[in-house]
């Protein structure tokens, strides 16, 4: 573990339904460094694939666009901006695994971070707030 890294313990684990109850998002890990906060999650069942490969190497739409965004505020009132993320389907197709980040890293004296997650998949969207200990 890098110096100064803060890693969420089991107590940070949270699960909730997203996208009108069609999927469950489970927070797996919250990691904080001086530069960023990173949240790892799993969504079950897997989100549909947005793209499929064409024989010529290009992409063709296969499912709805999926958008994921996050913003945060800590218990001291400091704001955190979306630092982006990435997600993909596990090889068995059972779930979507991903992570997203916020910037900057938390102030040393901050004790909790409230995240607002916004997830859109085609016509369905949901917004969720969760507070995580730092």
């Amino acid at each position, binding site marked *: 573990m890098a110096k100064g890294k803060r890693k969420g313990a089991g107590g940070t684990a949270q699960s909730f339904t997203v996208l009108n109850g*069609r999927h469950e998002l489970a927070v797996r890990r919250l990691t904080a460094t001086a530069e960023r906060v990173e949240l790892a999650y799993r969504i079950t069942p897997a989100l549909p694939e947005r793209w499929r490969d064409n024989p010529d190497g290009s*992409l063709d739409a296969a499912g709805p666009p999926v958008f994921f*965004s*996050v913003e945060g505020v800590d218990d001291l009132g400091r704001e955190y901006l979306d630092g982006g993320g990435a997600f*993909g389907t596990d090889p068995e197709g059972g779930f979507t695994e991903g992570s997203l980040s916020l910037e900057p890293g938390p102030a040393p004296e901050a004790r909790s971070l409230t995240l607002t997650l916004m997830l*859109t998949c085609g016509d369905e969207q949901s917004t969720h707030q969760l507070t995580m200990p730092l």
Partner: protein
Amino acid sequence: MLDTKRGTLLLCSAVGASLVLAGMTPASADSAHGAGSAARADSAVSAESGDNVGELISIPAGESTAATYARVTRRAAEINARTTADKKCTGVWKHSVANVDWDRTPAGTVRWSFKLTATARANLGAAVTVTMPNAWVNNHAINPPYGPHSKASTYDFHGSMNKYNRKGSSTKYTIKTKNKITFYWLIKSNSNPRAGATRYITCAVPPKGTS
């Protein structure tokens, strides 16, 4: 059940996706976006347009990450300086390196989702690190809204922006409709230090609630 009027591409379910894959939707999936179809189709721009650029790159042997960043940054700055935001950040921007989906939430956040093509993945390998060395709003360099993410090259890479800081300033600005935004992504192979790709988009912030 399928809502054929709106099109299966609006369904967020494995059933909807599997039906699409089985060929039960129109041949042009981009045309199956119901009310949003026109905007999405209209914003699918050609690969060679100056506001929609990308290329596979060969990184010189031994070049440091900082030197690579500096090199691609110079090129990105040149493109940004000469490119106008003629199209809105909506719909899908297709390219042989990566397709990028855009929307803007009713609250005003611009969101994007980025997928590498099979051609790019074949060049880059199984795992990549995606960064955004540079971004601009109205030609002001800003702190890029995307940190490094190292994942399988098949993943969707996504981000969003509402508030931002200009480089060297602690003042928080909020994006506004018609702002010119420019994002420049650098994708590096995790297995081959000489393989990389770039992706560049300049577009205009659309009205709130646009997809």
